[in-house]
């Protein structure tokens, strides 16, 4: 059925950075089916348009969802500007999830660049909640500047959590930044994980995904254990608009999360 957006109300908003906002939304009446980490919703800003946005939080309370949105254009700016109490329309859940279960018994390695941390946040929470089922949990995050780092407080708390190792790097350090500077791939060298028993979950700009996956392969992580989340233009999310093609994949249906074994040859072709 051609589903129409279901009204959700903004119950809390927090400004993450100058251009990025996290909204917690809750269904006004009917709730959408449950989302899994890595899946996305189509968010409708009334009178402006609809955009794909991953879930950045899946809450038990009142079927609430969190979305972290960076304002880059008309619709994302309108979503970011939604006030508490305002209604948005949501469709979903769409796409493949991260499938954290794949990492059971081994190490979990999360690598995020910029807004790419948003879809990984529910995965990290699930990994912490399932501690014991996984060995080491490494979270490596990159941002343009220290001010662009998402969920800074949460990352600090996480760094204190027993099984988690958190490392952050920025492209351009500001005053007072004592941490790493440079590409997120540099953090890989210092992270403690057993490549053969690691499942990596990667999201960020495509160049960062390529570089990270390449380095992980060099370190010996099997290609099918490198799970990447990709982005393409999307108009419908139901497999009918044709915009989200990446070679044989329709990323709204066969993605956004896919194994690097599947996508490596596709990402190697320019302008595919």
């Amino acid at each position, binding site marked *: 059925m051609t589903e129409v957006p279901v009204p959700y109300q903004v119950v809390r908003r927090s400004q993450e950075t100058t251009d990025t906002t996290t909204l917690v939304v809750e269904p006004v009446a009917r709730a959408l089916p449950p989302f899994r980490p890595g899946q996305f919703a189509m968010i409708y800003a009334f*009178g402006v348009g609809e955009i794909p946005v991953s879930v950045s939080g899946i809450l038990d309370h009142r079927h609430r969802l969190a979305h972290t949105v960076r304002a880059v254009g008309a619709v994302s700016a309108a979503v970011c500007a939604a006030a508490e109490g305002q209604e948005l329309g949501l469709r979903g859940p769409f796409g493949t999830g991260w499938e954290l279960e794949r990492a059971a018994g081994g190490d979990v390695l999360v690598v995020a660049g910029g807004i790419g941390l948003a879809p990984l946040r529910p995965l990290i929470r699930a990994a912490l909640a399932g501690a014991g089922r996984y060995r080491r949990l490494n979270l490596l995050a990159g941002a343009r500047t220290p001010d662009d780092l998402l969920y800074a407080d949460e990352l600090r708390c996480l760094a204190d959590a027993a099984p988690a190792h958190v490392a952050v790097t920025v492209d351009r350090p500001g005053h007072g930044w004592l941490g790493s500077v440079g590409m997120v791939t540099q953090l890989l060298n210092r992270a403690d994980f057993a490549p053969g028993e690691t499942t990596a979950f990667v999201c960020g700009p495509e160049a960062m995904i390529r570089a990270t996956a390449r380095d992980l392969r060099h370190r010996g992580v099997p290609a099918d254990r490198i799970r990447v989340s990709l982005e393409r*233009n999307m108009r419908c999310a139901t497999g009918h608009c044709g915009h989200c093609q990446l070679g044989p994949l329709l990323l709204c249906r066969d993605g956004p999360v896919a194994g690097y074994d599947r996508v490596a040859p596709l990402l190697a072709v320019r302008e595919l």
Partner: protein
Amino acid sequence: MADYDTTPAVLDRAGLAALVRVLAGRGRTVVGPTVRDGAIVLAELDSADQLPWGWGTELEAGRYRLRRRDDEAGFAHSAGPQSWKTFLHPARERQWSADRDPDGQLTIVPDRPEQPAYAFLGVRPCDLRAIAIQDRVLAGGHFADDGYRTRRSGAFLIALECTEPGGTCFCVSMGSGPGVEAGYDLALTEVLDDDGHRFLIRAGSPEGAEVLAELSTDRADEATVTTARTTVAAAAEHMGRAMPPMDLRALMGDSLDAERWDDVAARCLSCGNCTLVCPTCFCTTTEEITDLTGDHAERWQSWDTCFDLDFSLLHGGPVRSSTRSRYRQWLTHKLGTWHEQFGSSGCVGCGRCLVWCPVGIDITEEVAALAEEATS
């Protein structure tokens, strides 16, 4: 065995006129070919008189001409500028309407207008295949396009076997024509010889058999059956074009770095005509429209083309910024990745894309060049 009568019958021109009346009488909107503005277009028909009796077409890459025939054949023309997707998957369609009340509450309702019960008269084998392909794309997956599914499931298809293929046809090499075996309600074969002008007609569904029973027909004579069969078989030998006989899907997969893409990109205007006329191309975009009060909004869907720069737009720019990459996307999708996505090729060999290309780019020629490059 079918549980309805599939015995072929014979109709004359008056019988065809009666068929149109019977379908209209059953509440159907009859759509078929007719001459308009120098082309044979698909339009709603009030009577069989509007069919293009005595008209033929001359087709070449980048060229379409109507011509008067020496006979009164009604269906001896090839694919025109439109296809049935104009009716089943229209160029523009409203998907939903949304209202915002003074408290900011949203009410969003799907658009489900009454859909016409179509009867398509004269669906070519290539186009019958194209409809089956769009069925898989738009209604065969996890999500179905409601409007499409409703129009499609209510449509009555009268197939028409090809007896005179055009210079740009290559259905034989795509395995989609010139005869039809299934997927229709009624199938017609036009027969024109010394014994007169008539149609062999057979039912392919219970409703088809019911409609046929309402017409006064004669059981088909042996001669008509044989002539129909041999004319269709002969048509297979008269295709104006052919795709190279090879695994096109594998060729596409192996050709992503081919030099030929630069060659075709130097000619291609990136106008998207080929995608608009192609009976299987399905891509769409969306548009948000608000009224003056700002409290009523509508979501519209309209055809889009992968030749448009915005089609692949992401933050930072389009993924496919060169014409090379956009033509490659179109062709490799059509003949290659369509298989993985929807279980078949996306090309049926109708030839529309080459006829309506302003610079006459010929899909069969491009594929042949890619094949040559791959083997050299």
